[in-house]
Every structure is written in structure tokens, then in C-alpha cells.
């Protein structure tokens, strides 16, 4: 990790509980959970170029899978949370198959439909999911009956660090380069020996696994889940975090998700204005900083090199 910004972020994350009060730390923890899902979405949308407007659906699958496994079948959380990630990844793989035939706005609409289906499914199957009353999953516990905010925070930081490390490894791997090739020029990818079907399916599964894990964490950190937590609004929130933070950037996804979560809470006093301010901020970022907040600092402080690496959809229409 040679990047001074990344070091600063890591050090700040460790020291934060010393200066941020309890509730603030809890909000930050939620932001880090969203960051885990945003990193996954970033692999799919930023790295592999496949738009998903229904990613909160995978979070919902993860949250309810882990909650139900632990509540109904007495699975320990150490087992139910990873199983939730696997379950979401399998659903992601299944969704990836029909999605292979779609791209751009058609894929966006299809994934939006998936997200809506999941939240409606969770709402309607009351006997299993509790309907709009939701579920009260076990909370993550260590020594005390009620988990301390700093414990939840450090636990989430540790998980997020692991997920970030894995995503960075994927980005710089054979698979990561294949994703970029499929995103930017599918014909070039094929001519180079890359199977676009396998690459997109891998991206869908991996991305859904991240979201499933994030959903499971949310369930056991908050201690309550309901279908409205995984609605279309949550999916748009995730996509906004990825775009505002910086597409195809792991730290960008983290910064975007944390900034949006904290901002959302900070603006809770002006509830009516919140959406307007949010929408306005998003328009400004997309218009003036298309590389996102993370790349904005790259251009400014620590390097004089222009960052040409701005994500763009330059999909080849033919050779």
C-alpha cells in the first residue's frame, strides 16, 4: 500500500472511535457495511461494466438467509453469515445467465425488476420473513449482552479491510483484466481469448456475494431487518455511492458509501430537503468530477499526473 491517502484512511479508521461518539460510530459502521456492498457493485458495474439497479436485492437475500438460518435452525453467526454470502452469490450467478443477453438500459431495467421482486417477495411471504414487521436477527455479541458500538465498528472495519484486499487482488488479477476488456471492448476481449460469458457470470456472482455478506452484517449489527431496508431506494443509494466515490475504484466505493451514509444521517433534520440536496450533489459530481471523489483527490494533492483512467463506456460495436 504505497498510496498515502490509503494509509491515512486506514489510520483514521483505527483511531476514529477515540473521537467519534457512540451514535456517530454506529452510523459509520452502517456506512462501512454499505461500503462492502458498494465494493461488490463496483466490481460488477465499474470493473465489468454491467449495470445493476437492484443490488439491494442481493443484500436482502444475504440478510434474510443469515437471519433465518440463525433464528430457525440455530446456525452460529460464524456459519450463517458466510452461507448468506454464498447464497447471494448463487442467486447472482442465476441472475447473470439471463442478464448476459442484455446490456445498457435493458440490463438496468432487468436488474431493477430483480430488486423489486426480492423486496416484494420478502414482503409477501409473511410466514417466513415476517412481512413488513420484519425479523429481529441475533446481534453480534462478544462479552456483554448488548454489543458495544466500538466492537461492532472494529469488527466491520476488519471485515471491510479483508473484502477490500480481496477486491484489489481481483482487480489486478487475470479475471480483473478480463472484466475490463469485456467492459471496454468485448470484441477485443474475445479476440484475446477471453470468454465474455464466464467473465460476466463471475462478476455477477462475486458482486452478489459481497452484497449478500453486507446484508448479513447489516442484519446482525442492526438487529432488525425489514423488506424496506432492501428496496429500490437502497439499490439507487448503492449505485450512487459507487458513482460518487469513483467507478472502478475500491477506495472510491468505500469513500462514496461512507460519505453518503454519513451525509444522509446528517441531513435527517431537513428530511424534506434531503432528497433534493442529494440529487443535486449527485448531478454536480457526475457533471464536474466524472472520476468520482476518490480520483478528485488524486488530481489535486498527491500527484501531478492527469488521471486518464476515467471510466467510460466505450463498448465496441464491431471490429
Amino acid at each position, binding site marked *: 500500500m504505497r498510496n498515502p491517502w490509503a494509509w491515512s484512511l486506514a489510520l483514521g479508521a483505527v483511531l476514529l472511535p477515540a473521537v467519534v461518539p457512540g451514535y456517530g460510530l454506529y452510523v459509520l459502521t452502517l456506512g462501512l457495511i454499505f461500503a462492502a456492498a458498494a465494493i461488490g457493485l463496483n466490481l460488477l458495474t465499474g470493473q465489468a461494466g454491467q449495470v445493476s439497479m437492484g443490488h439491494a436485492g442481493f443484500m436482502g437475500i444475504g440478510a434474510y438467509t443469515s437471519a433465518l438460518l440463525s433464528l430457525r435452525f440455530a446456525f452460529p453467526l460464524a456459519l450463517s453469515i458466510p452461507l448468506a454470502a454464498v447464497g447471494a452469490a448463487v442467486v447472482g450467478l442465476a441472475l447473470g445467465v439471463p442478464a448476459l443477453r442484455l446490456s445498457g438500459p435493458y440490463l438496468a431495467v432487468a436488474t431493477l425488476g430483480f430488486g423489486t421482486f426480492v423486496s416484494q417477495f420478502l414482503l409477501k411471504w409473511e410466514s417466513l420473513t415476517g412481512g413488513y414487521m420484519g425479523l429481529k436477527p441475533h446481534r453480534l455479541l462478544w462479552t456483554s449482552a448488548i454489543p458495544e458500538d466500538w466492537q461492532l465498528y472494529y469488527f466491520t472495519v476488519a471485515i471491510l479491510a479483508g473484502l477490500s484486499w480481496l477486491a484489489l487482488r481481483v482487480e489486478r488479477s487475470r479475471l480483473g483484466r478480463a472484466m475490463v476488456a469485456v467492459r471496454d471492448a468485448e470484441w477485443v476481449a474475445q*479476440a484475446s481469448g477471453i470468454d465474455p460469458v464466464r467473465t460476466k457470470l463471475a462478476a455477477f456472482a462475486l458482486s452478489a456475494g459481497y452484497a449478500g455478506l453486507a446484508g448479513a452484517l447489516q442484519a446482525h449489527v442492526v438487529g432488525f431487518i425489514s423488506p424496506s431496508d432492501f428496496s429500490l431506494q437502497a439499490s439507487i443509494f448503492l449505485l450512487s455511492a459507487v458513482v460518487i466515490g469513483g467507478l472502478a475504484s475500491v477506495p472510491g466505493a468505500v469513500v462514496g458509501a461512507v460519505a453518503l451514509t454519513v451525509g444522509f444521517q446528517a441531513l435527517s433534520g431537513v428530511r424534506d430537503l434531503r432528497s433534493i440536496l442529494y440529487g443535486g450533489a449527485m448531478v454536480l459530481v457526475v457533471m464536474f468530477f466524472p472520476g468520482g471523489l476518490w480520483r478528485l483527490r488524486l488530481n489535486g494533492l498527491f500527484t501531478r499526473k492527469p488521471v486518464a483512467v476515467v471510466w467510460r463506456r466505450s463498448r465496441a460495436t464491431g471490429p
Partner: protein
Amino acid sequence: MPPVLEVRDLRVRFGGVTALDGVNLAVAPGEVAGIIGPNGAGKTTLLNVVSRFVTPAQGTVYFAGQPLLRYKSHQLARLGIGRTFQIPRMLVGLSVLDHVLVGAEHGGLSGPRARQTARETLEQLNLSAVADVSPLALPAPLQKRVDLARALAGRPRLLLLDEPAAGLAGEERTALGELVRSLQVRLGCTVVVVEHDVELVSRVCDRVFVLNFGRLIAEGTPQEVRRHPAVLEAYLGEAEHVGA
């Protein structure tokens, strides 16, 4: 030894338009073959059939004696077929080295060997100095060379070049011709060049195929083809270029 590339009775239709009409051709191992023809002659369509981006209505394609149409386009790199594109598409966010690495690691090499081959290929094409640069920062001629390096890094036995000289200036065209020839000698691969520039094809190719309106109208050495009456007729208006 069978031809590296053999096309038999190839017919391609796009709706009501016949893009290729009963084309037959064979390229021997180690040859540099050129495919020329006026705009719309079917040159790139032929290349797209061979690289499996277009499925023909009729006909067969053989690569080193084995039927090629049973494979998908992404399987060809591992078989030993590489290709470049008329307008090279650069992969955003990857350095020049990573770009070439994509060709090496998906063409059948793995791990450090793929990286080593990518570096060697950059060296061969005089691109080592820009290995860590984003290819988007490079001028168009160098982007074409990066695209060529990507195709070469898979160590192909058959290299398909789609209008490699398009957009290049005079000196760059001369350099490209020398580069293609030297690559053929050094790597021993068979090369098929689709090109508008008849001068370049004449200089570089051992054998030339001329297409017009989807039909093969002439084949032979560059000298034979340039004197062929059907070629002169097809290039009417460009006759002085062909006959120069």
C-alpha cells in the same frame, strides 16, 4: 503440410446483401498474404468469418487442417489465431503492459511466463518505454502497435491484421511494412493482412487475394495481381495507384 488457413466456398449474407459469394482461398504456412479490394468488397467480413465474429451462410474454414467453424471466437486465441482491429480499442484503466498481458495470459500462458512474454513483445515492438503508461495517452499509431502487441503476445501461428496502415502517415506505413515482415521472420507465424494500401501489400506480401463485390477476382504474387485485367477494372479510378 496443410495450409494454415483454407476457406472453401464461403458465402455470407447480411439481409439482402451478399457480402461474400463463393470465396475460396488458401494460405500456406509462413506466408504473408494480403487481401485487397475496393470499399465494400468483403475484406473485413472475410476476416470476421475467420475470427468467428460472423457465421457464414455456407462454406467451411480450416485452420491447419481442422474445421474452424465449430469454435467460438474466444477459443481461437488458444488455438493459435490472433487478430488486430482496424480501429484499435484501448482498455481503459490498464497500462500498456497490462493490455499486452491480457493477450498473453488468455492466449494460453500463465503467471510469470505471461508477464515475461508481454514484456518481450513490448520490447520487440519498441514499446518498452511506454509499458507503464495508459494506452489512452498514446497517439493513434502507437495505439495500433499496442493492439498488435496484444495480438502477438498470445504467440499466434496465424496473425490476422485488419487494415494496419489505416490512419498512418507515409513513414509510419513504411515502418509498419518492415515490422510485419520482420515479425514473420522472427516469430515464424503466418500473416494475413487486409489492407487498402496496395503499395504496402505489394511490398510486404508473398501472395495477394483480390476481392470485389464479395467475389475473389484474382490471386497471385503482387506483380501478377497488379497486371490482372479484373483487378485493374475493379480499381478503375484507382488504376494509376495499382499500376504504379
